[in-house]
Structures are given as C-alpha cells and as structure tokens.
C-alpha cells in the first residue's frame, strides 16, 4: 500500500513539474520554431542572411567576445579579493557586485545614457577627445559588461571558499611565488566554477535587450544586436525575420546551456 501511494505521489509530482515546464517554457519555444518554419526554410534564412541580420549576429558575437573575457578576469580577481583578503570593505564590494541583478536593465541603460550623454558628467569631455560612447559599440559594451558582471564572481566565490588555502600554502612552501601558485594551483582547482560563470555570462550578454537598446540607439546595420533586430522586425510586421533571428538566438543560447550541463557533469565526476 505504502509503496503504491508513494509511487503514485512521485508520478503526480513529476507530471505536475513537467506540465508546468511545458506550459511556461517549452510551449513558447516550440511555437517559435513552428512559426519560423511554417512556410519553409527560405523566409527565415533570407531574413537572417540579410545585411542587417548578419550585422546584428556579428555584433552580438562581438559583445560576447569583449564582455565575457573582461568579466572573467574581473570576476576571478574580485572573487580572490573577497575570499582571500579579509577586509571590512568586502561587504560593500559584495553588495555592489549584486547591483546588476537587482536593477532593471532599462534603468542601467538610462543611467549610462545620462552619464555619457551630452549633458552627462563624462559625455562632453569624451566627445571632445573624439570618443563616441553612446549610439556606438563602446556604449553597448559598457551596458553588456554591466548587466553580466556578477556571474563569474558569484560562481567563483563558493568554489574558492571550498578549496581553502592549504593547497596554496603548500605551493608556497615548495617555492612557488604568488603568480605561479595562482596559475598552477588555484586556477586549476576553481576552473569548473569559473567555466560555469563564463557560460552564464555568455548567455546573459547574448540575450541582453533593455540596457543595450537604450544606449545603442538601435541603428539598423550599425548598432543593432540580435535581440534588437528581432524586436525591430517584429514591430515592422516582418514576422519571418523576427522568428528566424529568434531561432538563431535560441540556438546560441541552447548551445551555451548545453555546454554548461557538460561542464557540470565533468565537475561532478
């Protein structure tokens, strides 16, 4: 009796969980794929191989190529500072790092707009120096870095705490200086945590819409990333283009998530 009832409740829970995921997550995704290829392969492929579409794809990948390494280096350094160098200011740093999680990306975009705009604190002096931040790539990089900043730090801190300091101390007694200890002992020990953070950062940068949409000015073929391209095609009733680009975006995201799962399994092993 007990076995049957517990089996029944287990199946009940599974059905509920899967049902919930299907309605909320899978159904919309399936719908996108269905709608995209409803009239064959040609319309979506045409849309994303258009000059604007290709440019948007390249720009999105460029954002990843710049923002992810920056946040990885910063994230690992910041995690080392937080975990290995106990200091009163650490609590403040820790809270500041969480800001991008707490603040809406639109607000982040607006604040960058105010800071670097013609009326802002930094805008006038930068434009005098010939550096254009708003409505160009530098501003978009700033926005991408901002919104994806916490991931590597948050994933690395617990791993650093877990490995402790003894291995690093052992390395120093064996003659390794701080740099050698970091590369040969610390980094290999935390590598899966860092990799996990990198994957999450990549996914976040790829999908970023709000902050980038404000600082970029959304100029087609110039400052339009893939999410911005999707939104513009959709607003212009070019559903084939919108869906096609969405599928590309979804596939990129799925690839990073898949990479994350592979890494996770490696970490567990």
């Amino acid at each position: 009796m007990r076995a049957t009832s517990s089996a029944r409740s287990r199946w009940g829970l599974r059905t509920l969980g899967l049902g919930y995921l299907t309605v909320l997550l899978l159904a919309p995704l399936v719908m996108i794929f269905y709608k995209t290829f409803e009239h064959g392969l040609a319309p979506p492929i045409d849309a994303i191989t258009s000059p604007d579409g290709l440019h948007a794809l390249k720009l999105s990948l460029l954002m990843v190529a710049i923002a992810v390494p920056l946040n990885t280096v910063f994230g690992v350094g910041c995690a080392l500072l937080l975990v290995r160098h106990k200091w009163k200011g650490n609590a403040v740093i820790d809270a500041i790092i969480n800001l991008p999680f707490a603040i809406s990306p639109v607000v982040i975009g607006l604040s960058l707009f105010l800071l670097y705009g013609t009326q802002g604190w930094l805008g006038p002096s930068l434009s005098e120096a010939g550096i254009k931040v708003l409505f160009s790539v530098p501003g978009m990089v700033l926005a991408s870095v901002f919104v994806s900043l916490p991931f590597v730090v948050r994933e690395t801190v617990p791993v650093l705490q877990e490995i402790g300091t003894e291995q690093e101390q052992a390395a120093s007694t064996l003659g390794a200086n701080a740099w050698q200890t970091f590369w040969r002992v610390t980094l290999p020990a935390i590598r899966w945590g860092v990799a996990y953070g990198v994957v999450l950062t990549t996914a976040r940068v790829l999908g970023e819409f709000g902050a980038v949409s404000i600082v970029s000015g959304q100029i087609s073929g110039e400052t339009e990333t893939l999410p911005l391209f999707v939104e513009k095609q959709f607003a212009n009733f070019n559903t084939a283009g919108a869906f096609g680009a969405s599928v590309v975006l979804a596939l990129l995201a799925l690839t990073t998530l898949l990479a994350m799962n592979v890494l996770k399994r490696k970490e567990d092993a």
Partner: protein
Amino acid sequence: MGITVEGATKSFGDFQALNDVSIDVPNGSLTALLGPSGSGKSTLLRAIAGLETLDGGRVLIDDEDVSKKPTQKREVGFVFQHYAAFKHMTVFENVAFGLKIRKWDKDKISGRVHELLGLVQLEGLADRYPSQLSGGQRQRMALARALAVEPQVLLLDEPFGALDAKVRKDLRTWLRRLHDEMHVTTIFVTHDQEEAMDVAGQLVVMNEGRVEQSGSADELYEQPATEFVMSFVGEVNRLGEQYVRPHDMTVALDRDDGAEEAMVQRIVALGFEIRVEFVLGDGTEVWAQLTRAELQKLELREGQIVYLRPGEIKSFNGDVPSSDGHGASTPHSPPDDDDAEVSAAV
C-alpha cells in the same frame, strides 16, 4: 641547519597565540612541539615556515634571520595535517611540483620523483589522483613532495592527526627511520605525548602560548619543571598540592603509618597493565598502575579498604621542581644532560 626562534609573539585579535617564545633546535635533530590545542605549537611551526607573520621576535634558520623572507624563499618542507594534496594533479605531478617550479629538466625530475616514490613506498601509484589514495598514502605523498626539493628543514604539522591509530603507529616508526637516514632537521607538532616521546629525540612542551619546558623525554618525565608538564607528559594523580605518578603508588592491605586509607572503586584490566581506581577518605579519586602479578598477590576486589602510600611525590612552588621521598616501585634514572640539547627560554 639549526632553527632558532627568539622572543616570538603573535596575536589573533584578542587571542595571544605566542607569548615571547624562544626555542633552539639543533642541526639534524628530530624535535617535537607538544601541547594541547590552542597552546601555540602550530602557530610557532607556521611562523618558522613563514606561513604566519610574527608580531615580534625573529626566526633564524642556519643562523640566518629569515623573518622577512617570504615562505617560497625559506626552503622549508612543510607537511599539513590534512595533506594539502593538489587534487587536480597525479601523485607524480604532486611530487614533481617543487622541481618544476625550480625548472629542472624532465628526465631529472622523473628520476628524482621515482626515487622519492620508492622511499615512501608509492612506486606503483604514480598515475593515481589523491582522491584514489588512502589517508596514509596521501600523507606519504605529501612527505615525498616536501622532501623532493631537498629542504633545509622539514616541518610537520600534526602529520598523523587525521589517520587511524594503526596507520599512525606505522607511519611514526617509518618517520623516525626516515629521519635516521636523511638527517634533515625536523620539527613536528603533536598533541599526543606518546607519539612525541616515540618519535622525537627532544621535546618542547607548550601551553597557552609559552614554552613550559624542553628536553629529552626522560627529562620531562622525571624532572617536570611545572605542574603542566607533570600532568601533560605521563599520567598523574593529584593529592592536594602534590602530584604522584600512578605507577609510584604502593598498595598495602595492612594499616601503615603515613599511608592513606582508600576504597577500591574499580579494577580495569588493560592487558599486562591493571588500572585500579580508589576513592580516598576526603573523596579524592586516584588510581594506581599495577602489574597483573601485583594484583594477584594483593587479591584486590572492588569495595575493599586498602592503604595507599604514594612513592615519589612532586610539588610545584614557584615552578621549581622538588622531589620528596623515593618510591621503590620504579627505578629512578638520573637525568642525562647530554640529551638536553633543546634549551628554552620561558
């Protein structure tokens, strides 16, 4: 490569871990830092390695002041209680680590690593990862790793603390033999007095951040300088202000002048040794260590009234040891001054 520490002090917040500690460890010796947890023994060892920075005082290795030198330049081998194995490296890579840092060429590294793995009896396990080794094997790997770079001194921080009793005993015998072969100046930290006496030629007893006494095992046992040493090194009964070793208790069945009346509370047979617990008239609990033969002769049973005569009594007034009376139950060996190589300023 003797080690000298002069006037070392170190505090962690309000806690004073080291309070004006000076020790002198002669070249080639095997010395134990013995004390309860919180006595400062690990902090002292870590300060010698440069893993802790002293608030005051100096550390000299081979008469050179290394107080300002970073750990990686002190050329010390250090073995941690929890092994500190590099988990992402194989046994071979772990042992080779210090040699790679020193930019040895590959063939030389390979030769040296295999030589050391032979020494610590891990020849067949070079390609294993630390997670695939037992605790004892991991600690031997850690020892090989520390010895690979031919350190000036070898420092071991409770090296057998995380191992079970059997492995512990094997490893300490093995460590003593290894030291006899290598003659590298070695300091090891332990809270286990039996382990310290078994392995080390000289002992430094620490308590509450200070050195209580140092000397050979015999010296500490026969001539303890303080109450703490008396009770920490070997077993002891306390009778008011006086201390007596359980094997210095003579048990008599007939009333005797100067002997105390006591009731046998419990008789515990521990193989050859018998532990008899008594309660005195004033409620003090003491015990005596008897042999099986002595017990059979006395025919003691629980609840019986007997008369105890403490043999050699020690009392400590102003930390000056004084002997009072000599028991016949144990031969008293005179302190051997040649063994007292470790001098300590308390």
